[in-house]
């Protein structure tokens, strides 16, 4: 079974994966929003979504998580897949609890990494949106109407602003989550 979803919040994604596992579908792969599921005994696995990379410091494509993955697997869990900075693990529920972050400090550090990722990508997206807005204004000034390529730029700019706002909102959301944890 394949399902298409875009998750910004890893906790919601985790909850969704666990819910599907409860219903007898075990997630086995991910590619650009497309999740692959295989049938399993209901509730067989507990899923955890993790993020280890640091935006701006660890390139998205770099794969130096072997050591970490090995450590997680030693605790009885299983590595499912990776998508850029994101890692997904699962553990058979009968093998006991599955928590990757067992103290508040490391949970906060995780939220910090995620927040920084949203800020970082948001800023990139913002500069993209700004320069494209410039292009769009040029186009408008020259022709006074939008058609063909003009409309394409318009759509791209709109999308870029949407993503920018979305990512900034997400970084805000993770700031609030951090606050809640600190309390």
């Amino acid at each position, binding site marked *: 079974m394949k399902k298409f979803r875009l998750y910004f919040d890893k906790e919601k994604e985790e909850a969704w994966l666990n819910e599907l596992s409860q219903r007898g579908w075990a997630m086995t792969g991910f590619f650009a929003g497309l999740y692959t599921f295989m049938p399993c005994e209901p509730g067989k696995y507990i899923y955890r979504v993790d993020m*280890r990379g640091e935006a701006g410091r660890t390139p998205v494509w770099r794969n130096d998580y072997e050591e*970490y993955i*090995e450590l997680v697997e*030693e605790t009885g869990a299983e590595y499912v897949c990776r998508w850029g900075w994101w890692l997904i693990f699962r553990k058979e529920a009968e093998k006991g609890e599955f*928590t*990757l972050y*067992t*103290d508040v400090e*490391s949970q906060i550090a*995780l939220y910090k990494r995620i927040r920084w990722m949203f800020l970082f990508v948001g800023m990139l997206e913002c500069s993209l949106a700004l320069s494209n807005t410039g292009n769009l204004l040029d186009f408008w000034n020259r022709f006074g109407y939008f058609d063909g390529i003009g409309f394409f730029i318009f759509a791209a700019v709109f999308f870029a602003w949407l993503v920018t706002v979305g990512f900034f909102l997400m970084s805000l959301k993770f700031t609030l989550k951090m606050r809640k944890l600190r309390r």
Partner: protein
Amino acid sequence: MAEKQTAMTESVYYILLSLGTPNHGYGIIQKTMELTDGRLELGAGTLYGALNTLLEKGWIRLYSEDKHSRKKKQYIITEQGNLALQLEMERLQELLENGRRIYQQQMSVELEEEEGKCREKVQESAERREAIDEKVQVVF
């Protein structure tokens, strides 16, 4: 060590304790479980992050990285790490001693108060008994 000493997290404390002898990642998790009677099971994410921070701080170092065999990385505590651990233990000791002392003082004050109240009650009941006895004598 110019850094100001702040309280260690429980995880860091047990990681350092587990690295008195060379140990690898999962070994640290097991050792911590053993030391705390199964209470504290370090998560892989927590441990991995802490190991990297401790390496950066120079509190632990790589003990062996066998490039030929596929043996796991082992870590060991450094002198600096030992110093940090000692300072932390002193801090914890102070914490505990102060706690015990103040608590005991309070307890003894409370005990004395309790004792005082009991004495009063004993006194009261004795007086009541006398009063009853007197009445009984009057009746007969």
